[in-house]
């Protein structure tokens, strides 16, 4: 009995304390409804954490987060299947005019070339990466590694990560037909983490001990370098809505830009952008 009273008192204290501070999440008080989010896979950690916090604060709100890639994000938000469609690239003119979409850039993410941690390569130049993806360099020996065929992994058509990589890392270079294709940042990480002879690319937020990012043209692909402009292979992460967001959708987007949302973005390994950029 005593325990219950204490825990009740604690809960009340907690509630009043959080109300007193007027945390950003309070905006969701008394709200109801569902919010469906899909698209870019780089966004998922941020979206999931935000959704988790909002749903545990107010169980009347249901938020679903799905992947699919940037192309899917545009298509689904445009067709009204989801309320927020995420993209890891700026929208194309035709996409904006066709669906009437509005974009909110909330973070910067770098895309880094990655290899297996057992690979002794610690530096790659952009020219080497271009040649590897074009199929001109086929053996790790040719770039100073242990001899062995390079297993090249790329992403599917329509992936935002792939678009940044092709445009900024290999400068629209050719892709050999033998490049293996995986369909998410997570699948790329699994493929490279398992294979000693693999090369691939992921959003910097996905880099951990299981994969290694060699320096690219002498720069360490880190979020700091992406933020200060030293590392060039970067992109913005966008949330897109059909028309100006309203109600729950607007609250969610505001939450991502609030101090708490900024914290989540940072913890997920991205550099937050202020609203209205």
């Amino acid at each position: 009995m005593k325990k219950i009273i204490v825990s009740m008192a604690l809960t009340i204290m907690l509630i009043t304390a959080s109300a007193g501070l007027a945390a950003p999440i309070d905006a969701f008080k008394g709200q109801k409804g569902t919010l469906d989010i899909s698209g870019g896979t780089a966004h998922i950690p941020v979206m999931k954490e935000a959704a988790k916090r909002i749903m545990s604060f107010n169980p009347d709100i249901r938020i679903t987060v799905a992947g699919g890639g940037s192309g899917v994000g545009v298509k689904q938000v445009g067709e009204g299947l989801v309320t927020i469609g995420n993209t890891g690239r700026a929208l194309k003119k035709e996409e904006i005019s066709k669906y009437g979409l509005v974009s909110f850039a909330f973070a910067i993410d770098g895309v880094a070339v990655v290899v297996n941690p057992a690979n002794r390569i610690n530096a790659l130049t952009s020219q080497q990466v271009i040649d590897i993806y074009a199929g001109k360099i086929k053996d790790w020996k040719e770039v100073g590694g242990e001899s062995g065929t390079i297993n090249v992994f790329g992403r599917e058509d329509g992936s935002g990560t792939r678009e940044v990589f092709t445009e900024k890392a290999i400068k629209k270079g050719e892709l050999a037909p033998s490049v293996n294709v995986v369909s998410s940042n997570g699948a790329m990480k699994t493929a490279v983490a398992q294979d000693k002879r693999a090369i691939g690319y992921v959003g910097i937020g996905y880099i951990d001990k299981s994969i290694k990012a060699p320096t690219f043209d002498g720069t360490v692909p880190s979020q700091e370098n992406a933020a200060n402009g030293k590392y060039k292979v970067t992109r913005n992460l966008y949330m897109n809505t059909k028309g100006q967001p309203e109600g729950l959708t607007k609250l969610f987007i505001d939450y991502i830009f609030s101090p708490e949302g900024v914290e989540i973005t940072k913890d997920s390994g991205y550099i937050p952008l202020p609203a209205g950029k």
Partner: protein
Amino acid sequence: MKDNKNTPIWLKASAAYVSSLMSALFIFIALCAVDGLMKSGPSLFCSVWDPERGNFGILPMIWASGLLSLSSLITGWTFSVGCCCFIHGFGPRWAARFLANILRIMTAVPTVVYGFASVFLLVPLIRNGLGGSGFSWLTASIVLSLLIMPTMVLSMDSAFKTIEAQTSITSAALGFTREQNIAMVVLPASKQWIWSSALLGFGRAAGDTLIPTMLAGNAVQYANTPLDAMRTLTAHIGLVLSSDVGGTAYLSLFVAGGILLFVSISANILFRLMRKKIWMQG
């Protein structure tokens, strides 16, 4: 169809509903595929897939789909016939029961579980043991043949059961052992079912999307050795679906879908004809 008047209305209604939905789907895919062929036919039938430079070849995918489904069917079907004989008298009773139960459980395992387990178990095994990246024709084919086996074994098994029940006493009276009965009597008599189970297996093998997407590597090239990566039509549809709406790349997906539909329909018709022939002979 004899007692048409006594068929409940809801049965008729659901039959009409399902068949109209199916035909609408067929017509839709056929129309879109023809549209795609008319607008961009020649550019589709080449070997290079590079939408950024205006190359939309889907020939490597057609090749891959054919290779993968046939190779999986041949291995899967052979093992299925073997399993079925094992269950019906060639294996010890406890092992037969064990195998039959395993196969029954296998039908309930979702495809993604096979794919996921193989990424972590089979792919490294192939990569370290045989070379390549491990994501290959061989890997996908092994898993796919495993995936289509239970359906084939179970459909053969029911035929075996019926025919064995009809013939076992007669054969025993003639001095046949159970193994001899299976090999000499049951197997030839259930020919029709053995063939039609191959059709079932082929349909599943050609239509499966997840296994080739997860395990075959998806590189757009002609796979020459079993260790090469390949991209099947189904995986191709899955991967390209997320790119832009409209344009040749998008239309090519309908052509790919149309080809898949055409192949499975022709396989169906072919097997039906074969079955009829065997039926008439028997």
